[in-house]
């Protein structure tokens, strides 16, 4: 370890201890855990304050060992410990901590005679909460480490990054050692040693080092999964931490990188970076604070809350529009009512926002895949992400990771040229893959772009003709043509690479995106690159819909499946054999589906010219849905119709409308396909 005593910033440690004290007072001892003290110990160790580190470690240990103590006893234990830590920091002559526990065996006895001796129980169940916390925290560290390793690989002058990675492994090691996960501890220890060498500029971080560190994070992640499995009561696979892996890490540390292409590169900037090593890392601090102030909630509870908020909004609307109230001209009442309306709207917004998560985590996963794939394919790729803070529904964010991976894989495999080819074309040999996310008029737009060779319009057309996907003479826009690569028939062909290769797994992408009620658009310029834009709803719980009327029933048509709507004139309409009705819209003939016939209800009018036609889409094919009239556009909260009606065709769900009545949400696909 470096001697960094000269750089000790006592204020930082004081702050940390004060923060713990504040939390102890505000949140109670139950919200403090051994990991808090682990972190303190780690900071102290990094700052070279050995006694304080030991003290913090000991408090952490005694806290864990004394988990069955009563709350007042625990509070006393922790607060006296913190006071001693402060003393230690303020005066070097301070005495040993009263909570000091000289050996692990003593840890089983709660200090200060606060309760009966607790036998140290090694079974997982005893420390389940602690271990779960360990798994969560370590996973977060691993995710952070992974993305930071990638940054480091691109620009290995980042001493801060290296330090932060080092700290991540150090924390994992400490916690694992504390919870007696020997495999994790030993692996983390070896990686830590490796990183320490890099930190002290013994050698530079070569791709081989990155490889071995990333491999280690993978193995660690699997170890964590195995622990989770053990907690769940099933038998995990055998550990993958073996001597071979540890040896590889050690070898990387000793500079023998197994003959990998790019050897150690001298890295002068690390030297100067060491002196600023113990900088206070704001990102880590922020995350930690975030940890303590977030709560896991069962989604069922959230749904229940959403239900009740929905009801509240309805009740509020009903009161606000009640004719009895409108006749009252009491200014105070009016003011209170509008205040109530505002608060209700706020509550609704917050309740909806609770399901939102930033998309950054998915991007980090993608970054890792880009790196691995590019290395395997022998291409040079820089991955850039922006808009990581863009929030969207948790379900959508999770569902998005597969399409993202498929798309970057396609870009790397087929879109991006080899470095030599790129140089020959006069391009930068290093290609760029950009992933961005932003909010755009109530939707989230995720764009993936590369600067590869682009899609070949003509070849796609030729291929589509050959496979019978399109008719000759069809009028198609560029976007229409590019979208053909998502057709299932397109990806099965073995010559996909001939048409810029896009297509492998692309129908999977489209299926995923459609499931999320999203849309994909493609822009591509030959030789310059391709951009995929995925437009997604903010949440799956709310959709924008057209409220339409048929007879006495109101239905919601999701706006995502609506192209346009109009009242037809007689000239637009024609029939086949007097039965099959069709409408001609801008030279396009579309079949007409009468909703009242499909659903067997009494409409207000059966004459097409007196109603409204909604142009909807079923798997890319447009058709017209005939309804009585359009009431308006509205955001609705989707509810399931329930098990009972799960096989009803043409209905995707239902919602509670503004007046408290239930409205059915139509499934355009189902209506079109269900030929009664």
């Amino acid at each position, binding site marked *: 370890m470096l001697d960094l005593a000269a750089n000790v910033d006592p204020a930082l440690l004081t702050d940390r201890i004060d923060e713990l004290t504040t939390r102890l007072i505000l949140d109670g001892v139950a919200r403090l855990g051994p990991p808090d003290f682990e972190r303190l110990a780690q900071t102290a160790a990094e700052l070279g304050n050995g006694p304080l580190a030991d003290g913090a470690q000991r408090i952490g240990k005694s806290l864990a060992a004394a988990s069955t103590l009563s709350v007042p006893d625990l509070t006393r234990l922790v607060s006296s410990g913190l006071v001693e830590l402060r003393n230690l920091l303020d005066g070097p002559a301070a005495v040993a901590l009263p909570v000091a526990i000289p050996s692990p065996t003593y840890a089983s006895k709660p200090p200060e005679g606060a309760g009966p001796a607790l036998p140290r129980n090694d079974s997982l169940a005893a420390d389940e909460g602690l271990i779960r916390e360990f798994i969560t925290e370590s996973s977060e560290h691993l995710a952070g480490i992974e993305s930071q390793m990638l940054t480091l690989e691109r620009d290995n002058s980042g001493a801060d990054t290296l330090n932060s990675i080092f700290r991540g492994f150090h924390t994992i090691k400490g916690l694992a050692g504390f919870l007696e996960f020997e495999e994790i501890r030993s692996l983390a220890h070896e990686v830590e040693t490796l990183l320490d060498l890099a930190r002290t500029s013994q050698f530079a971080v070569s791709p081989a080092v990155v490889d071995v560190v990333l491999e280690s994070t993978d193995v660690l992640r699997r170890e964590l999964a195995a622990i989770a499995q053990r907690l769940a009561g099933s038998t995990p696979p055998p550990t993958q931490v073996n001597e071979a892996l540890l040896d590889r890490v050690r070898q990387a540390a000793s500079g023998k990188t197994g003959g990998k292409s790019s050897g150690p590169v001298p890295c002068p900037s690390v030297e100067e970076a060491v002196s600023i090593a113990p900088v206070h890392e704001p990102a880590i601090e922020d995350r930690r604070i975030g940890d303590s102030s977030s709560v896991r909630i069962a989604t069922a509870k959230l749904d229940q809350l959403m*239900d*009740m908020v*929905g*009801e509240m909004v309805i009740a509020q609307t009903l009161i606000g529009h009640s004719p009895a109230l409108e006749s009252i001209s009491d200014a105070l009442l009016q003011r209170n009512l509008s205040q109530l309306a505002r608060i209700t709207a706020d509550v609704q917004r917050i309740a909806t926002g609770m399901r939102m998560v930033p998309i950054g985590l998915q991007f980090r996963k993608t970054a890792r895949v880009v790196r691995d794939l590019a290395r395997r394919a022998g291409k040079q790729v820089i991955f850039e992400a922006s808009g990581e803070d863009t929030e969207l529904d948790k379900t959508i964010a999770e569902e998005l990771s597969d399409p993202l991976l498929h798309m970057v894989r396609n870009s790397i495999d087929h879109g991006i040229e080899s470095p030599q080819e790129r140089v020959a074309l006069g391009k930068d040999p290093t290609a760029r893959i950009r992933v961005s996310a932003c909010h755009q008029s109530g939707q989230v737009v995720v764009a993936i772009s590369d600067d590869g060779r682009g899609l070949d319009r003509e070849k796609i057309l030729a291929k589509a003709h050959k496979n019978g996907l399109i008719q000759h003479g069809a009028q198609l826009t560029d976007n229409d043509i590019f979208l053909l690569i998502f057709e299932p028939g397109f990806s099965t062909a073995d010559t996909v690479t001939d048409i810029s290769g896009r297509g492998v797994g692309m129908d999977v992408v489209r299926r995923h995106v459609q499931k999320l009620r999203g849309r994909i658009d493609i822009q591509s310029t030959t030789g310059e690159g391709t951009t995929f834009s995925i437009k997604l709803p903010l949440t799956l719980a709310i959709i924008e819909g057209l409220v339409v009327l048929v007879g006495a*029933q109101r239905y919601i048509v999701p706006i995502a499946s609506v192209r346009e709507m109009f009242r037809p004139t007689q000239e637009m309409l024609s029939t086949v054999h007097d039965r099959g009705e069709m409408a001609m819209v801008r030279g396009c003939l579309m079949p007409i589906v009468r909703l009242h016939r*499909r*659903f*067997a*209800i009494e409409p207000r009018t059966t004459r097409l010219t007196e109603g409204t036609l909604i142009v909807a889409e079923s798997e890319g094919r447009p058709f017209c849905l005939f309804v009585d009239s359009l009431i308006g556009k509205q955001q609705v909260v989707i*509810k*399931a*119709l*329930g*098990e*009972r*009606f799960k*096989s*009803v*065709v*043409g*209905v995707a769900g*239902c919602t*509670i409308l503004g007046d*408290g*009545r*239930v*409205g*059915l949400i139509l499934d355009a696909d189902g209506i079109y396909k269900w030929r009664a």
Partner: protein
Amino acid sequence: MQTTPVPQASSAAPLPLGANNRGGKYLIFHLGAEEFGTEVLKVREIMGMQDITAIPQVPAYVKGVINLRGKVVPVIDLRLKFSMDAQEYTARTCIIVMRTCSSGQELTVGMIVDGVVEVLNLGTSDIEDTPDFGPGVDIPYLIGMAKTKGKVKILLDIDQVLASDELDRFVGTLQ
């Protein structure tokens, strides 16, 4: 919409209804001249008639769904379910929201009846077995018959009446 929450002894689990064990409190309602009884413990609330959203492709007796404080609850017309003539809804018509159990799943279902009469405390001795109507007449959802105040009350095993199996089977054939 006026709703009348029915006080419930939530701690008292509904007893299984065997032949010896049919006594208890029954909510009596009527369809035309016939009076029916259902266990009070399974009644969640009684509400006035309200707008029902129709669902396509379901049997006629399934009138649709209503919004019960944020929950979407299916509603059936008991007259149609029992193959009686349909009748105009009146001010006395109401929806009895029941909590039933079918194949291990808890279901909340509303049933439309002509009107609610009273809550009766029936002893085991008040209840007689269903008479044998002869071959060809099989009514599986009858618990028994109760005779009080000179009138016959038909006691229903509501779990059987509202079991979703029948509906599922019907909807299943559409596929």
